[in-house]
């Protein structure tokens, strides 16, 4: 177990470093600085701004300054971090620098404000995905071959086929405009999260449904399950004790990539529903050349996805000890 975690950690560090370096080089080497605007700044002003953010330093120096609290001679990096009480500590010290677009905030501030929002949205989507998916998968498996099964499978495949912003538009049309049950956009209460959660989670619910159905069908045809039913055990008990755990294992393994997908899909959904989460920050920061924020979000997502995958592996081993961590 310890070796597993250590190895994971090592790979994680390497991956993260690679992501940071590649992103850094890509961003800095591209034209269009963060200070361009229709109303141009006078030359000296812009030069002064660039100097302030150390954008006039050579690339390697900027890179080192960004990474860590390295003393680089008399002009030590002096970005502000956190509440401004320490000079910029660098990424290695957990400080992601000042945002270039939101001049009043550091990247840590922006992420701290927006991450809980995205997490909430993601959780609601996951609830929908797992809840709806498993439920429909069970029904489909139990009524296998029937019309309900066919209908649900059709719905599931459709859910995978439509882009999530189309689903979002349809959802808004149906449940916010035609029948004004939910708010059209915005954020601030659970009601605001229903439609976005649905739109975001729909494709994954579809996948989960298929996975559950497949897994469950296989288990239900096993002899020991048939015996249990024949012995007179109530069907729901059989389901709960025998069928579900085995059937849910593929769903669990799918949760890792599913959550990563939810993170990605949130880029579009957050835009449509005007939710101030981290997804919207990513797209805008890439377009605004807000280098530090862009990097910050990328780093954050790398960490999240990695951590989640590891967690999923750990949990699936815990649930089914037959799986060894070596294979995971």
């Amino acid at each position, binding site marked *: 177990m310890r070796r597993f975690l250590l190895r994971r950690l090592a790979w994680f560090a390497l991956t993260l470093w690679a992501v940071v370096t590649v*992103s850094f080089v890509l961003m800095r080497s591209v034209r269009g600085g963060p200070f361009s605007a229709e109303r141009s700044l006078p030359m000296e002003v812009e030069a002064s701004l660039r100097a302030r953010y150390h954008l006039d330093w050579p690339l390697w120096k900027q890179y080192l300054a960004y990474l860590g609290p390295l003393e680089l001679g008399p002009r030590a990096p002096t970005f502000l971090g956190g509440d401004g009480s320490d000079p910029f500590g660098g990424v290695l010290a957990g400080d992601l620098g000042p945002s270039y677009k939101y001049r009043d905030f550091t990247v840590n501030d922006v992420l701290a404000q927006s991450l809980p929002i995205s997490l909430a949205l993601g959780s609601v989507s996951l609830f929908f995905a797992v809840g709806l998916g498993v439920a429909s998968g069970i029904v489909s498996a139990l009524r296998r071959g029937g019309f309900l099964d066919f209908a649900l499978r059709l719905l599931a495949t459709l859910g995978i086929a439509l882009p999530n912003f189309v689903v979002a538009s349809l959802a808004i049309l149906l449940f916010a*405009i035609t029948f004004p049950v939910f708010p059209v956009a915005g954020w601030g209460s659970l009601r605001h999260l229903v439609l976005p959660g649905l739109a975001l989670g729909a494709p994954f619910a579809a996948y989960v449904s298929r996975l559950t159905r497949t897994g469950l069908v296989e288990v239900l045809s096993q002899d020991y399950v048939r015996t249990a039913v024949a012995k007179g055990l109530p069907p729901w008990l059989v389901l709960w004790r025998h069928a579900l755990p085995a059937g849910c294992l593929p769903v669990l393994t799918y949760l890792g990539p599913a959550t990563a997908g939810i993170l990605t899909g949130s880029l579009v959904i957050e835009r449509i529903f005007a939710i101030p989460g981290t997804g919207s920050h990513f797209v805008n920061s890439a377009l605004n050349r807000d280098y530090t924020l862009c990097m910050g979000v990328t780093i954050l*997502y790398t960490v999240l996805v990695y951590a989640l995958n590891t967690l999923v592996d750990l949990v699936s081993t815990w649930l089914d000890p037959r799986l060894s961590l070596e294979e995971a």
Partner: protein
Amino acid sequence: MGFGILMDRADDAWRGTSPGREAWRRLRRDRFAMASLVFLALFALLALCAPLLPLPSPMALDLALEPRAPTPPWESFLERGFQREQFWSLGALDRGLLALRERLFGDRQTAHWFGTDAKGRDLLARIVWGSRISFEAALAAGLVSLFVGVTYGAIAGYAGGRIDNAMMRLVDALYSIPFIFLVIFLVTVVNEYRGELGRLGIERLHVFFVVIGLVWWLTMARIVRAQVRALKEADFVQAARVSGASHARILFAHLVPNVFPMVIVYLTLTIPSVMLFEAFLSFLGLGVEPPQVSWGLIALDSSEAIGVLHTSWWLVFFPSASIGATLFALNVLGDGLRDALDPRRRG
């Protein structure tokens, strides 16, 4: 049906079977999968021959003040109004097809069976022409991921041992990078240098395709590697080795062709995700741009057509239906293929 199976068996006994033929036979029995195949083939044909079809221009602006509701075919089948100048930015082949169309149909074009969008562009034409980009994207991504992924996976699986280990570690590492973000970076980067790239004849679209392919090869590599590893010890491989074939020959002449069925299956299952990704990028404004049209752009228009004041239902329904139907068909076909190739997997 039973009689058919008997006949097939007799046929086999006479001719000898191969896994491919078995699979094809199983596929033929799956009605849904066959229906999907036919549908997709038809659609692909439509897309290919788009300039030949008597459709209105998908790109010419007719600044009507409102999107026009659909006129069903039984009300108005064809109308006049086609002009060659309404089509631009076409390649040589397309221009030829367009000329042919003019010869065949004169100035007739279909009426607005699917309605128009706010700038007067016929929706049916946009959907058909837009599918070309989506198919192109899928094809290009598929091909790139094919070449890179299959080669990589085959070499890893065949080499085994430490080389295999190292190669797969790289794949694992790349897997955990949130590629979507780097892809968006890359697209914005490429966007900036399009002047220079344009002079080299490279369009943003081409780079976009390559980028997609580079992201999608990872799973392909994994699948191929697993298959090659399994097949490595098979008899026919041993035979080839004994007869002195080089590693390269064994790999590419024997192993890879046997891996192909799985590769095809995987392709049909990931093409939908490529199309969705293209739509996603277009929605964010980083994909295709006018006068070209892609499903992503159409979907973007449709999401803007929904409002509290007024909704042009055809702008939402027809694009969703087309995208949905195509991707649905691809999924069903992929499932069918997988079942046909691996009949142990039921359900």
